[in-house]
């Protein structure tokens, strides 16, 4: 290989690499300048009504996670104009979460504050790990779950159907979904912003899921003040559930 072709190849590779890094910087939430300050006085309601409706995807993790998420959703006051049905992700076989959310939706459809979205969409993804699974089975199931999650979201991306916001509060199932959405944003298929709410049960330390998801979240909310002091980018506004 002579010197000219070598220079050519390396410069192409370098340009490609720096383009990738540049893209990563653009999509990386930690490096973007979003105002992380909230005006908690709601005098500017007129502004919100002129906003474009948003597509919202909500993860219902399981047990306590689903419980906390429903407590949060039940406090929504209809300030958020939604485009299309509210979308939910549920682990396949998690019949309790499905039951709870359908009950919640039934109750809130009677509530005038939340009147805007009569239709709901449910997306099922396979469980990452069943209780009592061995390590190899768990590993296989995790990869399988990751693949299915990615495939489903990729297809949504091809149809231009990815949500504007992904709201989640754990457990581990949130990770494949969030990273798939982040990757799709990286390659330009989507633009989903990720909002994570740490469980109330985490008082002094973030959960592993929280730590892993923190770098790619656009907003990260905690429910105890000491966590917001301890970790960068964590926001605390009081107990949310």
């Amino acid at each position, binding site marked *: 290989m002579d010197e000219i072709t070598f220079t050519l190849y390396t410069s192409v590779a370098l340009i490609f690499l720096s383009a990738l890094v540049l893209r990563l910087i653009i999509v990386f939430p930690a490096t973007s300048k979003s*105002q992380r300050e909230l005006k908690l006085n709601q005098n500017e309601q007129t502004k919100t009504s002129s906003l474009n409706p948003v597509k919202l995807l909500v993860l219902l993790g399981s047990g306590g996670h689903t419980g906390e998420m429903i407590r949060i959703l039940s406090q929504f006051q209809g300030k958020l104009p939604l485009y299309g049905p509210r979308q939910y992700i549920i682990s396949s076989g998690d019949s309790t979460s499905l039951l709870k959310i359908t009950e919640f939706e039934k109750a809130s459809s009677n509530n005038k504050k939340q009147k805007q979205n009569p239709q709901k969409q449910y997306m099922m993804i396979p469980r990452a790990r069943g209780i009592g699974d061995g390590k190899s089975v768990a590993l296989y199931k995790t990869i399988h779950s990751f693949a299915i999650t990615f495939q489903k979201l990729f297809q949504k991306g091809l149809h231009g159907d990815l949500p504007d916001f992904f709201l989640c509060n754990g457990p581990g199932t949130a990770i494949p979904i969030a990273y798939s959405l982040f990757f799709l944003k990286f390659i330009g298929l989507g633009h989903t912003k990720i909002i994570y709410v740490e469980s109330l049960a985490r008082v002094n330390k973030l959960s592993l899921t929280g730590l892993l998801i923190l770098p790619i979240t656009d907003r990260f909310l905690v429910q105890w003040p000491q966590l917001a002091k301890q970790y960068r980018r964590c926001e605390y506004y*009081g107990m949310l559930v």
Partner: protein
Amino acid sequence: MSQKQQRKQLLVTTGATVTFTKLIELILHPTFLQLISSKLQYTHLVIQYGTSSDSQQLVEKLLSQIPQISNKKISFKPDGATTQTLTFPVTTTTTTKTSQTKSTSQQSTQSRLEIKCILFDTNLVANYTSKSHLVISHAGTGSILDTLRCPGVRLLVVINSKLLDNHQLDIAEAFANMGVLKFHVPFDDDIEKKIDWQGGKKVDDVERESFSDFLKLVEDVDDCEFKKIEPAKGSVIEDVILSECN
């Protein structure tokens, strides 16, 4: 003095699935039942014991060990509920003063306690929690919040040390620091027998001390005014999303 006792209810909730053996044992103990019935004047005790099959066996076993029930047959309804009524002797000392004599008469009455055991109720808050004077609960965030959001209901949390993921203690401590509840860490002999407990004290003694601590705490909480918890701020999430919409 009214002859009829006012309804005063104590709810014990152990969570939906996991059997919280220690908590059920603390509650279905004759001494505890005697205390809440004759001294604290509870008329109703509701125990939500969870859907696993060994919970029901445990409840049945403990009920049959209570002297007032021991010779009766305990039957569960198809939905896992059972109701037992117990009576406890109460001695009230009344001092009557007349001009010349001062007579002290001891009256023996009986206090009735209705114990209702249920598997689970999807409407636990509306049916039981909100109607209770005191709730003794496991340390799950769901149960804690359900109770704290009911005005006027006192909460005592019992930690399940058998659960591996012990954020339970963290969360109970954090809430106790806010002054909205009190908590108890029971002595669990399965775990602690192996440890040389407090410089060679007998396990039985430590367990007895821990139980009487629990009884004192129940008396304390029964008569305690807690701070109110601040309302939930979940609608902040809407504002967060809106502020990202620009």
